[in-house]
């Protein structure tokens, strides 16, 4: 790849979210804005080899895309006039001046409008995710489809449906009013964290981690933090993702899942940990306490432990307890029980796990059975442990997770054969 091509692509990746956000506001249309940005990028690829890279490539792309938008408007008008004797009132399009475009690129307003619109609760979650990655993230439809292991037409359909709903139901292109900001921001944070988790946990397929989605979620997390720097939960969300991501390389060995306890901690990315720890502290100082801060604090305690035995389990259990006050979900209750088992004692933890399982809500959740199996194994109750691992194996969907469970199961079975109970 030549220099100008690489520059063009990195500028596009970094700046297309800003450009598209402003063009959507000006044109009132996601499609027209996207087309204009695509064409501007094509123009860059065609003309930069001759003219050289402009001094401000982002501004060049913005101006060019804006001009394309105006051309489109003109062409559409002529087309419609030819087709129909009736003159339609063309949808409001207000061309902007050069300085206006320049200012728009440096203000967060348009990108905030974009992110709140993409993550509007009136859109379904699949649509929110696809649209956020497509517009704010600047990923192409094939790229998103590949990352989610979905056929391209499926992904394209999701985008079309979401954009059509925005247009036809008049979902506003606005930052929500103060009294709705908290709940709307929560839905933005959820979308970004879901993108991260899709990359990190990879529920289907052979690959345990899809790095591109993790990197993209972290990038979006940075954008959100920069756009609304006074929101402590935005800072905490970024911290949480960085701390999880720091362990990425250590989580897999020879295609096998490695648990936190068994990970080679020298493989943990210390730069990400340092940044994550710093962000957690900032978020906590700023307050008020929220779900992402508590989760990030838990991740931070794991990151700070030099060895598994150094882990401050009582503190982690206390944080999960606090998290339960925000979100009384059985999954968090399960994690709390595991922390109790590791800190206060296996017996007490197992009792809690059984209490959590009593509702039956986690019957189909493989990690519930895996956690129970793990505690039983530690207690030396191999037979029961093997049964629980077996249940977990039936429910796990990712090949890597299945492999891990199979390994545990065969270790237990070998042990049982050697020393029958």
């Amino acid at each position, binding site marked *: 790849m030549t220099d100008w091509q690489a520059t063009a692509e990195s500028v596009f990746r970094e700046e297309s979210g800003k450009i598209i956000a402003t063009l959507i506001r000006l044109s009132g249309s996601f499609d027209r804005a996207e087309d204009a940005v695509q064409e501007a990028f094509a123009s860059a690829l065609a003309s930069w080899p001759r003219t050289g890279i402009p001094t401000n490539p982002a501004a060049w792309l913005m101006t060019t895309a804006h001009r394309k938008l105006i051309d489109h408007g003109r062409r559409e008008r002529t087309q419609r006039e030819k087709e129909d004797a009736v003159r*339609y*009132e063309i949808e409001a399009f207000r061309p902007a001046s050069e300085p206006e475009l320049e200012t728009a690129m440096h203000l967060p307003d348009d990108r905030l409008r974009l992110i709140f619109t993409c993550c509007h609760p009136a859109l379904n979650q699949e649509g929110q995710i696809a649209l956020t990655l497509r517009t704010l993230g600047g990923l192409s439809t094939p790229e998103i489809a590949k990352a989610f292991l979905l056929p391209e037409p499926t992904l394209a359909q999701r985008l079309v449906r979401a954009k059509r709903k925005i247009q036809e139901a*008049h*979902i*506003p292109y606005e930052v*929500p009013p103060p009294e709705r900001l908290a709940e709307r921001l929560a839905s933005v944070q959820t979308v970004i964290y879901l993108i991260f988790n899709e990359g990190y946990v990879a529920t289907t397929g052979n690959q345990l981690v899809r790095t591109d989605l993790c990197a993209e979620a972290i990038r979006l997390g940075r954008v959100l933090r920069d756009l609304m720097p006074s929101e402590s939960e935005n800072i905490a969300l970024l911290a949480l993702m960085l701390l999880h991501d720091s362990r990425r390389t250590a989580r897999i060995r020879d295609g096998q899942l490695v648990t936190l306890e068994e990970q080679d901690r020298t493989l943990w990315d210390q730069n990400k940990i340092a940044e994550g720890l710093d962000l957690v502290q900032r978020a906590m100082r700023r307050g008020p306490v929220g779900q992402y801060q508590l989760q990030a604090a838990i991740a931070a305690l794991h990151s700070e432990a030099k060895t598994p035995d150094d882990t401050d389990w009582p503190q982690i259990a206390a944080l999960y307890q606090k998290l339960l006050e925000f979100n009384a979900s059985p999954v968090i209750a399960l994690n709390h029980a595991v922390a109790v088992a590791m800190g206060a004692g296996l017996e007490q933890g197992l009792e809690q796990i059984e209490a959590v399982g009593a509702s039956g809500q986690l019957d189909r959740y493989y990690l519930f059975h895996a956690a129970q199996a793990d505690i039983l194994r530690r207690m030396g109750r191999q037979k029961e442990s093997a049964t629980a691992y077996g249940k977990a194996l039936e429910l796990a969907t990712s090949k890597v997770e299945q492999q891990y469970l199979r390994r545990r199961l065969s270790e237990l079975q070998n042990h049982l054969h050697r020393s029958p109970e």
Partner: protein
Amino acid sequence: MRYMLLVYSREQAPAYPESMQQIAEAHRRVMAEATAKGILEGAEPLRPTTTATTVRPQNGKSIVLDGPFAETKEQLAGYYILNCKDLDEAIEWARKIPTGCAGAEGCIEIRPLLEKPAHVLVEAAHR
């Protein structure tokens, strides 16, 4: 943009006269506020589904059946048509409209109305 806000309620729930009064009062408040803002284009309560009749074309004929088109937990109980700036405004109105008709909560479905195509409006203006 005009939105229809469809009110779905549970008919099976037991009726308490005092709560019925509160619900009617809440509807009146919403209608008064929407009227004052000049955005109320219509609002009607429906009689319960025990009075519903369904007509369905089948093999070139129409069959007439007793009851609503679908047996669901919540039944259409009434509607509002409001002229709102955008979906967010419609959502704010939906939060104010009571959904209970007889004690239990239901829900509101918001549907944008298909606006008349521009040429229809132009022709109407010339008539």
